């Protein structure tokens, strides 16, 4: 047994106090002449034995109370004594040096990282190995890495490995590392034979900062191929650092949001910063600056008041100069762990959608013209989109489609083959095309002209009988176009009365989505994605010839959402957070033959055509935080796909640098306690290493014992006085 505060053992002398008092009373009693001695002697004779036992118990309890208090105050540790980093086994020993390489080990203390301290400690362990000893190194990562498969006695090799180690960016599984180390200890070194091996003792030395979430579960201590178990030695490499100095803050989450009522291209960035300190009444806020960096320049800076033990939420609004996918960095002032002060975020800034409306049936009466309704819908609300250009079908052949993102064929019954071809090329190059129908619609020419864009078959226009209407059913509300209609607004959409529509039999594939149907399951609104562009089909009219959609409250949002979708401006903010080590689902553009993911460090991961059978690939090499670019090869050309790029951040669980008491760590690794039951760190244990029995556990037992003894003593004393 050892003690964290051995000087408190002086308190054990307090256990002598009851004995001294007892002896004082025994040797210097008050003298009292008494006449009824005969009666007194008789009384004493009757109860003396009982009272002698009770006196002894009382005295013992009082000594126990004081001694238990002193022992509890001394914080005892039962088990192996604190072990030095040097080996002290008598015979040859095999040592597994487990080095915590998690993100938290990058934290700087007195201008040195915890990881470099761990490397130094490991070098010391290697230096002090005896000539008969062997060692191996395990890097605690996810999964653990063993630079040496078997133990070796070659110190130079061990030193060389240690000097090349680098910390990771992710949490480590220390228990897995300990298990792997124990397992590897039993392996036979190359060139050795089992029968020539001396009897080893086994030891696992864990070098870590033992930050809050370091220990995740129990480890296996049985050495493979042997009945022996390894002894565990935990070394806190930050033992000379005051636990209060391990306060750290970091950005735990950030999200972007288009500001609907704001000016064009304005995005709100919501940031949550957490300070992993102990919150007390005396805690004071630290003022730290938060910067938004776009294109390597500081675009915005605000000050945050960060209070220990609390979460601080902030929101800043920034107007981007360009639209589309933007990669931004939110950066806090550096502290102990700089890595968690930087947050990478992909922001989707709503792009301008330049639209061209082709009026199929111009009318002198505004309200009979489809364009009238489309234009009104487009310009309703905040004017964050440019005004559409309107032309007649005859002018389409002269229009430069490259100046537009979306072309709307508003009730155009027929187009020439050249125009259809131009539109097909326009879409294949990334444009958006919205087709709305009208009476006189030439299904045959559309089928022929748009075969590549809209595979399917148009039928004859279907009219409702008198006093009957067609209604929309089965809306796909999970699609961004219809997401707005969730809830109350949906009734405004589904009550639309349609008198006629053109049936379309889709050649179903996963690129087509039917957002609205009529009762006979014919599509009402169909979306189709081609490799680069998008197509939408409304199988009825925009104007009021065939439907009353144009005068429904759902009309304006439906038109705006559809045009934004076609213009690829309806991208959802990225909600999924990707941490270092996570697997990311990379979206594969259609017709991609090769996909490359470029990591922030420049490392490129390539996915060949055979791996691109689905619309996404799983990318798991997220080994570092930052922005990952995605490049796709379509038709021999490699193009950057910003919308597929993604940001990877460090796991905020590593930001909590507060120490886990070593006895907790030990108990968890030994399976004596679950990680969830670990107690709040009080930072009182700064011991170098730790044995087998939890300090808190023993202290608690002593205090309970003291309490019980006190209760018993009180009971006995009360019964003595009371009777």
């Amino acid at each position, binding site marked *: 047994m050892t003690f964290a505060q051995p000087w408190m053992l002086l308190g054990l002398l307090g256990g002598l106090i009851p004995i001294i008092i007892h002896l004082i*009373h*025994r040797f210097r*009693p*008050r*003298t*009292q*002449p*008494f*006449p*009824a*001695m*005969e*009666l*007194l*002697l*008789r*009384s*004493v004779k*009757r*109860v003396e034995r009982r*009272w002698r036992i*009770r*006196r002894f118990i009382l005295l013992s309890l009082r000594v126990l109370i004081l001694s238990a208090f002193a022992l509890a105050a001394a914080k005892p540790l039962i088990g192996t004594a604190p072990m030095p980093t040097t080996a002290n086994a008598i015979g040859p020993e095999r040592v597994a040096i487990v080095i915590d390489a998690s993100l938290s080990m990058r934290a700087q203390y007195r201008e040195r990282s915890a990881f470099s301290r761990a490397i130094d400690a490991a070098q010391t362990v290697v230096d002090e190995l005896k000539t008969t000893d062997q060692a191996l190194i395990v890097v605690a990562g996810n999964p653990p890495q063993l630079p040496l498969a078997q133990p070796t006695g070659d110190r130079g090799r061990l030193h060389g490995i240690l000097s090349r180690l680098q910390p990771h960016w992710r949490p480590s599984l220390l228990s897995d590392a300990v298990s792997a180390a124990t397992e590897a200890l039993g392996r036979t070194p190359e060139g050795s034979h089992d029968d020539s091996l001396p009897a080893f003792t086994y030891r696992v030395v864990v070098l870590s900062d033992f930050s809050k979430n370091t220990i995740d579960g129990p480890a296996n201590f049985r050495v493979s191929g042997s009945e022996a178990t390894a002894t565990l030695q935990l070394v806190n490499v930050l033992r000379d650092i005051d636990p209060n100095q391990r306060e750290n803050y970091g950005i735990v989450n950030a999200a972007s949001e288009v500001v609907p009522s704001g000016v064009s291209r304005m995005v709100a960035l919501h940031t949550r910063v957490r300070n992993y300190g102990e919150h007390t009444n005396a805690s004071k806020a630290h003022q730290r600056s938060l910067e938004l960096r776009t294109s390597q320049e500081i675009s915005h800076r605000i000050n945050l008041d960060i209070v220990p033990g609390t979460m601080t939420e902030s929101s800043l609004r920034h107007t981007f100069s360009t639209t589309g996918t933007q990669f931004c960095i939110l950066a806090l002032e550096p502290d102990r762990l700089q890595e968690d002060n930087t947050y990478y975020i992909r922001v989707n800034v709503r792009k301008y959608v330049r639209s061209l409306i082709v009026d199929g049936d111009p009318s002198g009466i505004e309200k009979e013209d489809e364009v009238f309704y489309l234009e009104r819908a487009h310009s309703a609300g905040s004017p964050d989109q440019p005004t559409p250009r309107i032309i007649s079908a005859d002018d389409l052949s002269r229009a430069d489609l490259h100046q537009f993102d979306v072309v709307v064929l508003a009730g155009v019954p027929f187009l020439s083959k050249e125009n259809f071809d131009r539109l097909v090329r326009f879409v294949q190059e990334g444009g958006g095309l919205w087709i709305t129908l009208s009476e006189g619609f030439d299904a045959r020419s559309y089928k022929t002209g748009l075969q590549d864009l809209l595979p399917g078959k148009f039928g004859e226009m279907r009219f409702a009988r008198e006093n009957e209407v067609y209604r929309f059913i089965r809306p796909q509300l999970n699609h961004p176009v219809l997401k707005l209609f969730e809830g109350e607004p949906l009734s405004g959409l589904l009550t639309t009365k349609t008198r006629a529509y053109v049936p379309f039999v889709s050649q179903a594939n996963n690129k087509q989505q039917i957002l609205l149907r009529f009762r006979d399951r014919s599509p009402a609104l169909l979306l189709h994605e081609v490799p680069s562009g998008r197509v939408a089909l409304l199988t009825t009219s925009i104007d009021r010839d065939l439907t009353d959609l144009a005068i429904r409250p759902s009309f304006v949002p439906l038109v705006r959402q559809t045009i934004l979708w076609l213009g690829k401006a309806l991208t959802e903010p990225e909600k999924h957070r990707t941490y270092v080590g996570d697997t990311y689902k990379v979206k594969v553009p259609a017709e991609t033959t090769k996909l490359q993911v470029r990591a922030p460090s420049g490392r490129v991961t390539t996915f060949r055509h055979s791996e691109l059978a689905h619309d996404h690939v799983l990318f798991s090499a997220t080994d570092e935080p930052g922005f990952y670019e995605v490049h796709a090869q379509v038709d021999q050309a490699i193009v950057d796909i910003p919308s597929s790029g993604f940001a990877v951040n460090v796991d905020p669980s590593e930001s909590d640098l507060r120490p886990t008491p070593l006895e907790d760590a030990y108990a968890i690794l030994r399976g004596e306690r679950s990680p969830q039951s670990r107690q709040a760190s009080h930072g009182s244990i700064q011991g170098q290493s730790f044995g087998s029995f939890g300090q808190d556990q023993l202290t608690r037992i002593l205090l309970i014992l003291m309490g019980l003894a006190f209760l018993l003593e009180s009971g006995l004393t009360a019964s*003595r*006085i009371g*009777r």
Partner: protein
Amino acid sequence: MSSDPAPASSTSTEQHSETHQGLEIDPKILADIGQLSLRARIVADSALAGMHRSKNHGSSVEFAEHKEYSPGDELRHLDWRAYARFDRYFIKRFEDESSLRVLLVLDCSGTMNYPAQTDERLTKLEFAKTIAGAFAFVLARQGDATGLALFSDRLNVSVPARARRGHLQELLNALSSVQASGPTHMGAALDSLSRGLAKRTTIILCTDLLDGGLEALPRLARLRARNHDVILFHVLDPDELEFPFEEGTLFNSLENEDHIRVDGREIRSAYLEEIARFRGQAETASRRARVEYHLARTDQAPGPLIARVLAHRARNRSISR
């Protein structure tokens, strides 16, 4: 014998049946009075306080004095001759006839010397002496022959029973000089007493019954058998009855070298059971021996105690008449 007839009561066969509670005087005040005679007289006066003057002056034939008639006086004692001579009514009053012998027997063993003299309350012996002195006063006023005997390990008759003038002072002097010491042999003392008493005597015994006293109680039956009357005052100190000692204490015997070290709190309950049993046995033994038993606590005023005894005795037509 007092010459003051007023408070005195003559021999009577028709004593008032009412009991007298006596005047309660704080024992602490009594303890401050050093002179036994004064203390005894105060106690005697307090015991007799409130007793009405007797309407009947008994049947003695020895004339004492005349008293002018007042309504209520018995007409049979009217002196017709005096009426004839003085033309006024006079009542004849007679000297009390003393037929009672009383022996005050005090235990003066070492155990009676408790608590220490320096204490603010009377020792058991002083308390016993006060009771004895008070009785001596009362008896002297009645003209009864009163004697004094002391005992510890043996009986010592200090003052023989007499009823003459000046005897009271002699008795009080003897009482004053009594000191407590030595062991107790109450049995032997009672045997000696039994042998030495020729005439019928009322024995007033003041003792703590400790150290063998309880075993000696059956011998009082012999005295009763010889037609002696016995009143037992069981004198105990409150310390003996309540055992107020708290800490570890070395208790020393007052009669020998016995000592014991105990914690007062630990032993109290057992001791209290023991003293209660002791008192019960004393009362039982007294009742069996037809001895009148009275517990005399030294922290209580002796006056009311004596008054109760006198009243009790009055009903039985002895001592007080």
